[in-house]
């Protein structure tokens, strides 16, 4: 009898709580595609498992198996969970929204707030965003969810040259406008920036992701100089999307406690990205290329380059689009990724010869999407990497099998 009373009480209370909720805030974000969506919308157009309340919870999981070898040596069979990511979004009012992304990498070895912002919507062309923002450099940095891609590995240039996922504390504005088949968007943020580690790290190369190890960047700037990141993008429904982005600022700690330690040194990054779907074949093409310019002291070792460039091109061709394995809208794709990075563009002071430190890879693969939210992937990777002297490349190849799914 007591249990029955408690159950009835909880049931009535639940009804009362739901009645207090502004029903207009309830939403369903399970849209498979948005015709007007641009890369910049990737973080706000995610798939959520629960969305019938003001708070939406979702995320994604990636897991894979690899058998990769280099020059005849292999670490054998490796199983990984590269990341489990949790999204929490809340509509605080019709014009104020909270969005977040928490990432658990390598089985919880690293837990990071990748994204945690409050958006205030004043006008479609004027939105304020503040918190831990994902800097809009290139396209992959914002559009990095595993289930969206047909390849087990993320693009090397976007994760090892550009530091995807690169987020930082700051504020900025973004907006979009539409004109018939055209959409235009912009984003501009001031955030904390990089630090000395990009040119003094154990990777032995200029390495922007080194700054991700500095968790203090969420507490304070390394030098008191804001990092500016801006992007403009234009999309035509029939042609595709083109984005141009820039990120730059002083990266080093040149002054501390009033003492001059070094001269201020700049980092400048430019990126261009595009994506399109060919109407006659439904071939999806997405690519990105970036250039990094870093002021490295000329008295330091050339091991750390002043210029880098790299990018990737993905071509995805749906070949079977029908009911398969009991899934009504399953799609089977063949895909190809081409990618390369020159970690150190330039010539040796001593000989005038080309500095090496380059990598390129070709990754053919197949993928199966039983639903839009889930992908199974089988890739073959072949890559060659030269050292800084340009000696004969280390050859790496092998097989990668994995899945990724939103939840």
């Amino acid at each position, binding site marked *: 009898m007591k249990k029955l009373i408690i159950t009835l009480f909880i049931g009535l209370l639940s009804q009362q709580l739901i009645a207090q909720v502004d029903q207009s805030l309830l939403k369903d974000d399970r849209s498979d595609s948005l015709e007007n969506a641009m890369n910049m919308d990737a973080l706000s157009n995610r798939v959520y498992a629960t969305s019938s309340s003001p708070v939406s919870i979702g995320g994604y999981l990636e897991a894979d198996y690899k*058998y*990769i*070898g*280099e*020059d*005849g*040596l*292999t670490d054998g*069979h490796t199983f990984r969970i590269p990341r489990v990511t949790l999204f929490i979004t809340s509509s605080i009012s019709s014009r104020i929204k909270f969005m977040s992304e928490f990432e658990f990498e390598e089985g919880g070895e690293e837990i990071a707030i990748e994204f945690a912002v409050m958006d205030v919507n004043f006008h479609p062309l004027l939105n304020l965003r503040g918190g831990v923002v994902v800097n809009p450099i290139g396209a992959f940095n914002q559009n990095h969810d595993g289930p969206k891609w047909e390849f087990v590995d993320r693009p090397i240039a976007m994760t090892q040259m550009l530091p995807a996922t690169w987020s930082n504390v700051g504020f900025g504005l973004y907006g979009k406008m539409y004109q018939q088949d055209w959409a235009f968007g912009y984003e501009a943020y001031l955030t904390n920036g990089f630090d*000395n*580690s990009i*040119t*003094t*790290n*154990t*990777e*032995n190369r200029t390495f922007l992701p080194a700054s991700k190890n500095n968790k203090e960047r969420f507490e304070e700037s390394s030098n008191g100089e804001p990092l500016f990141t801006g992007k403009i993008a234009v999309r035509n429904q029939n042609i595709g999307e083109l984005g141009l982005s820039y990120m730059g600022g002083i990266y*080093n700690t040149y002054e501390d406690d009033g003492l001059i*330690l*070094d001269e201020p*040194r700049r980092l400048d990054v430019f990126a261009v990205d595009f994506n399109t779907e060919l109407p006659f074949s439904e071939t999806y093409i997405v690519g990105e290329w970036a250039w990094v310019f870093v002021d490295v*002291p000329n*008295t*330091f*070792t*050339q*091991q750390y380059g002043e210029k880098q460039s790299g990018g990737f091109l993905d071509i995805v061709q749906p070949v079977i689009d029908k009911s*398969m*394995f*009991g899934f009504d809208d399953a799609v089977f794709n063949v895909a190809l990724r081409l990618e390369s990075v020159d970690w150190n563009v330039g010539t*040796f002071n*001593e*000989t005038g*010869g080309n500095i*090496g430190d380059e990598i390129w890879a070709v990754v053919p693969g197949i993928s*199966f999407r039983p639903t839009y939210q889930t992908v199974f992937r*089988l890739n*073959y990777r072949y890559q060659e990497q030269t*050292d*800084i*002297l*340009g*000696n*004969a490349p280390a*050859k*790496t*190849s*092998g*097989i990668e*099998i994995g899945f990724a799914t939103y939840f």
Partner: protein
Amino acid sequence: MTTRKIQSACAVLLLVAAIYSCDSLIPEAPAESDLLDGPTEGLSTSEQSRFLKGDIAFNDEVFTPESGLGPVFVANSCGSCHAGDGKGHPFTTLTRFGQTQPNTAPDVSIGGPQLQNRAIPGFKPETLPSGVPSMDFTPPAVTGLGFLEALTDQQILDNADPNDSDGDGISGVPNYINPPSYFIPKPFHQPVGGQYIGRFGKKAAAIDLLHQTVGAYNQDMGVTSTFNPIDPHTGLSTDPEVSDQTIRDVVFYLRTLKAPIQRDQNNPEVIRGKEVFMSISCSSCHTPSFTTPQSDIEALSNKNIFPYSDLLLHDMGPGLDDGATEGSAETFEWRTPPLWGLGLAPESQGGEFFLMHDGRAKSIQEAIELHGGEAQQSRDEFVALSDADKQALLKFLRSL
């Protein structure tokens, strides 16, 4: 059977086929004779474990300002200078200076014995004092060093002929070096006046691999240790920036790196080339072989090795006299460099040859033609060879 079952079976078969074909997807390993790195054959499992630790410290550990680099330095890791354990590139050529006469101490007041030409951000690198003679050293290959260290002093002295008593125009003298405080002599060492025979380095200024390694950490990377706690920038002692264990591991790694393996030994042209090599007396200094004595590492013991070096100093003539020196060597004297691994030099030098002590020779032929002094006669005989014999000799040298 339903379509779904057929599809599922195909998917499973595809996965199984992919996994079982894994090994065929891995790039083939290069032939062992085409590689300089790797352990010498016959190490025990515990020795292989120590080798691996040293391998990581040597090839993977990169020093940063936070971990002790500099503040002035030449390179930030061992591997920067010795890619694949092979010869280095002018990118990491280092400069020695401060000693212009044998048996004198290098002048540390002007920054000697080595120029640290790079600096961490915010610091200024050293510059070479005006008018001071200096020597540029391109990093050597580090393979097979354990076998050379295992040789007794007597084996080296057996090839010495300071007064050219046999009249062949070749002398060969040891470089006698003041040992560092941490040096522990072995029974086979034969000191003279408290000095010991050096056998490593362009001038044979390092007595053993510990001496060489400690010096490299300190002078090349600005990394101090308990063995040498003096910071090259300030000239003052500091806390150790690399552990004794790491240095010991690196020394063990260097001791147990395999000796380079000759390729195409049975090729008739290579065989002919070796005959030419002997006939024009290159072998008077580039001693083809030794047999190692018993060592504390069994894999190094009683092995026939083919370094093509006598580890002695020779007068190389005025063309190679840089006006600076180390130990008891004259400024025009250089240690005979081992020729093993010579043919693989471009594999670690960015596809080119940078030969002689400072990398000035861009080919083996140019290197031979730069020989002078005691080697003048052999050099002249090389120039006079028929094209066929010359090419055979060069092919032989590339096979090493």
